[in-house]
């Protein structure tokens, strides 16, 4: 029997799709790469996932698990075709265990929904990627997602206590759980960040954190990114660890203000969004230090969000910032790289120079506290040959970051996008260990094949070329 028919028997109506018109919207995520799946299945339970995996393995079809498709590295793009397993319908919060400060969730639960449900218990889920109003816990686990508040609270791996995962043979295994001290090999830690290459996570036990008693959010306005970066280094060296420390440059601010009118000053060369939280008694003192340090570093102005509403607006704008680039450019390549935070000003000078040399405008968002930068290379794909320049500029930026002691991704994952850059960070021996761990757990390499580890041919380049060809033909443009 055909795989699609078999899956229809198992999953029932409205859960398996194969016609081009029904699956073409699974060829993308938020990144640039695209590839068509052959089939899409939307299971509702672990048992259905097990049945899907068994059938797909028997048919030798690649399996790509997908959450909300908000990732930026092509992780959910089926570069070798095959079957998309969308976990969007497995979106139940199974338990909030307030006493043990944890929750048990299905992988399709939306990140922000979990925090909303936990709020009445005085708790929240700490990883807060900018996509959190749409992205799923399963996707956060796959990419070991970060977010502005990971500066003080750590990334996703620090908040996943245990997982249930369906393996290549259809068995469902469990690692970790509510008990704080896990024994044996830390396979939960291996699974978080594995981008769907080891199996399909079907349940997770996640840590919930107590909501801070008080929060102060300041917006500081600087003449230049260099001045703002100096303030970042000064703050951290003074021992203040803000709960979040975000920076935007002028071009980014212009798009953000066009979209949100949140009150970021458009005349600024850079803004810092600084948040401190803790006990009521602490936060005003910390906010005073922030004020003092920013002014000493040359802040032109600094103000505190007066209300919870104003704070929410500032954050909504910051979290929608990357998507707002659509207002100023038809296409953009959102990069993700990390450097030691003291090297930020120097790297930024390189980014500016690289942009100028390739004649490409680059807007910048930074999780400045972690030294995590998101240069966004703006372009119009209709210009012949521009993608080559965009890719070249991106490569140079990453190379500079690695030379400065940094790395090629902070939180977006490797996916298709960064696999060719892995040798910049890892030796052949390092990569070989990863490959062996991977094949120990997924011997047929059918789960999200050709991701993370460098593939024989660069899938990223192939997919990108594909996109140029598939782009709206010139005659369609007005």
């Amino acid at each position, binding site marked *: 029997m055909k795989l699609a028919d078999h899956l229809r028997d198992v999953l029932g109506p*409205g859960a398996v*799709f194969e*016609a*081009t*018109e*029904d699956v*073409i*919207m*699974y060829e*993308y*995520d*938020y990144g640039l790469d695209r590839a068509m799946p052959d089939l899409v299945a*939307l299971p509702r339970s672990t048992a259905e996932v097990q049945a899907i995996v068994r059938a797909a393995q028997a048919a030798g079809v690649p399996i790509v698990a997908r959450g*909300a*498709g*908000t990732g930026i590295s092509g992780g959910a793009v089926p570069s070798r075709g095959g079957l998309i397993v*969308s976990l*969007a*319908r497995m*979106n139940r919060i199974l338990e909030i265990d307030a006493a043990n400060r944890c929750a048990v969730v299905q992988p*399709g639960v*939306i990140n922000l*929904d979990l925090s909303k449900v936990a709020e009445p218990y005085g708790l929240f889920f700490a990883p807060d990627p900018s*996509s959190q*109003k*749409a*992205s799923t816990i399963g996707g956060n686990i796959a990419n070991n997602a970060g977010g502005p508040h990971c500066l003080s609270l750590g990334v996703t791996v620090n908040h996943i206590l245990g997982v249930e995962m369906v393996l290549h043979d259809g068995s469902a295994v469990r690692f970790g759980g509510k008990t704080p001290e896990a024994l044996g090999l830390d396979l939960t830690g291996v699974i978080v960040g594995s981008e769907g290459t080891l199996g399909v996570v079907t349940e997770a036990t996640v840590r919930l954190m107590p909501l801070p008693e008080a929060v102060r959010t300041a917006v500081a306005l600087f003449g230049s990114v260099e001045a703002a970066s100096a303030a970042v280094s000064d703050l951290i060296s003074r021992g203040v660890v803000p709960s979040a420390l975000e920076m935007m440059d002028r071009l980014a601010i212009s798009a953000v203000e*066009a*979209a*949100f009118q949140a009150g970021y000053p458009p005349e600024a060369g850079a803004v810092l969004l600084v948040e401190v939280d803790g006990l009521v008694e602490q936060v005003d003192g910390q906010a005073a230090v922030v004020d003092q340090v920013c002014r000493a570093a040359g802040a032109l102005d600094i103000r505190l969000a007066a209300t919870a509403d104003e704070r929410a607006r500032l954050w909504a704008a910051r979290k*929608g*910032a*990357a*998507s*707002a*680039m*659509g*207002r*100023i*450019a*038809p*296409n*953009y390549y959102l990069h993700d790289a990390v450097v030691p935070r003291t090297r930020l000003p120097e790297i930024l000078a390189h980014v500016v120079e690289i942009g100028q040399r390739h004649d490409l*405008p680059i807007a910048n968002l930074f999780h400045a506290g972690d030294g995590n930068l998101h240069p966004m290379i*703006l372009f119009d794909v209709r210009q012949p040959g521009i993608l080559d320049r965009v890719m070249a500029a991106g490569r140079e930026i990453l190379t500079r970051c690695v030379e400065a002691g940094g790395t090629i991704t902070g939180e977006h994952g490797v996916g298709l996008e960064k696999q060719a850059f892995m040798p910049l960070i890892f030796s052949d021996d390092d990569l070989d260990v990863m490959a062996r761990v991977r094949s120990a757990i997924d011997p047929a390499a059918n789960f999200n094949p050709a991701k993370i580890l460098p593939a024989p041919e660069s899938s990223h380049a192939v997919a990108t070329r594909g996109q140029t060809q*598939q*782009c*709206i*033909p010139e005659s*369609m*443009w*007005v």
Partner: protein
Amino acid sequence: MHPREYVGLSVSIPSPADLSQCVHCGLCLQNCPTYLQTGYEAESPRGRIHLIAALNEGRVAANDAYRQHLELCLVCRNCESVCPSGVHFGRIMEAGRAQLYERASLSLGERLFRRLAFRELLPHPIRLRALFGALLVYQRSGLQRLVRASKLLPSALAEAESLLPRLPVPFSPRRDVYPAEGQVRYRVGMFTGCVMPLVYGPVHAATLRVLRHNGCEVHIPRRQVCCGALNVHGGEQEVTRELARENVRAFLGRGLDAIVVNSAGCGAIMKEYGELLASSEALEFARLTRDVTEFLAGIELEPFRRQVRRSVTLQESCHLVHAQRIKDAPRALLAAISGVELRDMAHPDLCCGSAGLYMLTQRDMSTRILDQKMGEVAATGVQTIVTANPGCMMQLQRGVRRAGLAAEVKHVVELVDEGYQAPVDDLQM
């Protein structure tokens, strides 16, 4: 880089500039009622845009599957409200549907339905009035009870029939101009629409009273016709242009300060007349158009005369909150009426599943969305659901019946009107 430029409404090709503005980030997904129901990317804003783009790239066909994905969209435009990239989703979907219906082979029944609704009925006030007159007789004569008991109607028609609320007396203005009470503060036009006077006459009567009481000289031009919104949503743009021209002629040249409309769906398209007709008169018409809540919240209101003791929840009509981006005005009015207690439901800005003809043509999805909405309403425990659009009122009334709630459905302006009624000096005060 410059802010992007847009081309106006094309007849039947979605603008490539509009399509390319979507960066497929997915931040719209959780604000899309049909994605929330299905978890299926094809029923999401970003999926639909991708599908329409794919058709125009020659990668997919305008077949049944394509058509179903486009038709399952409510065009509530919630995605527009939350889109950081500023995608004009409504414009894309309207052009996408127009393009689809040019290409797709529709069945005879479908063509007949579209022709009847979009060309033979909605644009013709006299025919509509005759139809609803007959329906009124049908309801009042006992025939309705007979027909329902007989179960003779085909199921689709029976469902459509069940949607119709009990018809009140139609709104039939006797004058072209109604004077203001007291000193004239504003000269306004009142847009009455096609079905609204026949199904929700009392809302029009309340609107007229409230406007006059607040110093408005109210013009109700007889020449005005249907706004054309349903046509555009159904992918029929040409008829809408004709209707728009007629309405522009009916209202301009009277020295009006505003053209007031109490149907959010009508108001949304009326504000787009400028773009639709690209004439200076149409732009002027669009500039003058105000939703009744927007108008009233923007003027100094006469003091209310009595308390309106109601606990209410607000269903923010999509064409008000998303298409027109008016969120605060109805809330400001409700807060101004003494005695009204507003208890928000969990998602007041999420569509109720009405969406014009959608509640007839996509019965199944419409009902799923409605039932979830009624669950949220029930959790508030209110006596009254207020909203700002006739389609929403009709759907919510159906929801109340389905859920067996005791709640009433009112237009916001009806509560304002209640506040202006003579005080009742009974024990309630």
